């Protein structure tokens, strides 16, 4: 459960999928690198759990979706066959993108043995914000236009990745790599009625009130959705109908 191959020059790492995210980030930090995924440093969640079950990356605004971090994988299908997907380079369009198909699919198709991940330079100047917006009952980022109106221009929008629905308001937990525009935004929030904002210093951990658990979807949620072609894909990957059961 560790790093199999770290290439600092290429900013890629091959890891055992059962390695914990926190341990990986800790080891990468020694090389001034980071996986572009925000994660609770005290959690023991494995990379496999993160990439197979989670849907949201709180650093999405800076580094993209969870899927964007995974370049390649070695997988065991439910029928026992082993496959390799992707390539150990940041760009490859050879064949269908089976890596993206498998990441986020729970355990319905395959278990990952190893993952090849894209890394980024570690930035020390991280700012963490917690912002509470009153009276917004929508739960969708897509629908959260009032926030950007307050922000007065698209440069000032922080890509929200986590919302918590309270009884009478929507709490927005935001996070962004330190850019001056976000400081401007923070000032605007501080001046706006009904809004409060807190900011920790650079190089410090997230605000003590930061709720790590609430942004992570429970793995059971992945079983609830229905998609066209879902069963067809199951049969394509495991023709005899084999299934992994939840661990």
């Amino acid at each position: 459960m560790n790093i199999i191959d770290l290439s600092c020059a290429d900013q890629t790492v091959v890891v055992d999928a059962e390695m914990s995210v926190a341990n990986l980030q800790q080891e990468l930090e020694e090389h001034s690198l980071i996986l572009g995924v925000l994660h609770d440093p005290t959690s023991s969640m494995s990379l496999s759990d993160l990439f197979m079950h989670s849907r949201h990356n709180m650093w999405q605004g800076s580094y993209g979706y969870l899927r964007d971090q995974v370049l390649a994988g070695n997988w065991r299908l439910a029928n026992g066959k082993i496959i390799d997907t992707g390539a150990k380079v940041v760009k490859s369009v050879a064949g269908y993108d089976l890596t993206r198909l498998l990441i986020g699919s729970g355990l319905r198709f395959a278990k990952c043995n190893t993952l090849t991940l894209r890394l980024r330079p570690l930035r020390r100047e991280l700012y963490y914000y917690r912002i509470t917006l009153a009276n917004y009952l929508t739960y969708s980022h897509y629908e959260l236009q009032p926030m950007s109106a307050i922000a007065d221009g698209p440069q000032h929008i922080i890509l929200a990745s986590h919302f918590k629905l309270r009884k009478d308001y929507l709490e927005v937990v935001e996070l962004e790599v330190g850019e001056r525009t976000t400081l401007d935004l923070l000032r605007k929030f501080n001046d706006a009625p009904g809004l409060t904002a807190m900011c920790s210093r650079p190089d410090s951990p997230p605000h003590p009130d930061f709720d790590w658990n609430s942004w992570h979807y429970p793995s059971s949620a992945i079983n609830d959705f229905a998609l066209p072609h879902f069963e067809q894909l199951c049969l394509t990957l495991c023709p005899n109908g084999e299934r992994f059961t939840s661990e």
Partner: protein
Amino acid sequence: MKWLPQLSKIVGKEHLLTSAADLLAYESDALSLFRCEPAAVVLPNNQQQVVDCVKVLSAANVCFTARGAGTGLSAGALVPKGGVIIGLNRLNKIIEVDAASRLVVVEPGVVNARISQHVAKHGLRYAPDPASQSVCTIGGNVAENAGGPMCFRHGSTTNHVRQVKVVLADGSVETWGHPAHGNDGIDLRGLFCGSEGSLAIALEVHLNLTPLPEAVSTSLVAFASVENACDCVSAIVKEGIEAAALEVMDQQAIQAVEDSLYRSGMPRDAGAILIVEIEGDSDYVNSQQILAEDCFSRTGALSIKMANTSAQRALLWKGRKNAGGALGQLAPDSYVMDGVVPPSKLSEIMRFVDEVAERYELPCANLFHAGDGNIHPHFAYDGSDESQSKDVEDAGCEILQKCLNLGGSITGEHGVGLEKQHLLAAQYGAEEIDIMLRISNGFNPQQLLNPNRGLPLGGGCAEAFHRHSRDVSR
């Protein structure tokens, strides 16, 4: 062929092309090594017409392929003999801009660069920027998962597609992805991106928009050799500088640009140039530029030219982005390759490219996305010379095999198409290929939609590297 009048009825006879003169432009994409004349080209004007055309062709058991501007470089948008091209250029509406959500909804025929022009007033842009962005269309970008210089920082097309509305081979319409975050658990959207039009045809695409940066720094750095330029790229990456673009051009490419209409003042005496672009807020750009300049001097930069105005920056990029066109002057035909290696192997692969070009006695120029390790050797040749055409293909195979040996990929952004169909088995094992074929057959059971495109037709690796075919009609 009773389907022809049916298509005519859907789109109007003026938008159904059947004459040899009209079809000529559709017999190849920008990779002219492969040609096949379609039986007809149909040019629908709206999404419903596309769906209706697909239903007619599907019912008639006629194969068909969607096509945008035809700028593809892997022979991906060709159709076998007797088949029909569905041209999507007339579906060119920007349907919606939601600046607050950084979202734009477009039809597949919208030209890439038009999106950034359209949303600039909101302080936004569409980040993926293939060299052909002034003409290539979003439908093709999605089908090929197109890249470009800025993809080093911002990612390829798939990173920017949130949702797609598609028509399947049987005419049914589905929506994959999510307009807010692109994620829906099982990522059919991601499977579709880069599937080369073999799973479905895009009708509508929801794209991410990216804020225009507050500040941009663009440097053109001259080096004595490509190897020095590659060393500089390694130094920049090692320093932790998150450049937006790291582009290298060798001397042959510089000369071609400076001899063309696209001349941009590149140093003719340099062995190679490196274009470094850094973007962000002013403080960040200034701090990173200082670090970058240290890298330049440590790796033997001969000169550094900064683009101090937006006009100078535009001129510099004009030279880089039109270099492919400029290289077209060197010979009647040009073969643009697309391979990827880990960036730390760039020097090694470039030495190998030189060696191969010398051995085959083929003029070769290089311009590449160095940050991504994505190389684009350009071979100049005469397509009417069968022997030279074969040499070009052989040289290409050797280089791509070397990319694989160095831990890379046979394509970073051009796609497999017909060009590399025979090479896919060298990158993946039989099990992975089998899954891809089964997925293809699941979505496209009769193989009517861009049949077998981007997937191997069979044959092992050894056999694969000895295939030379320009005839795709069968």
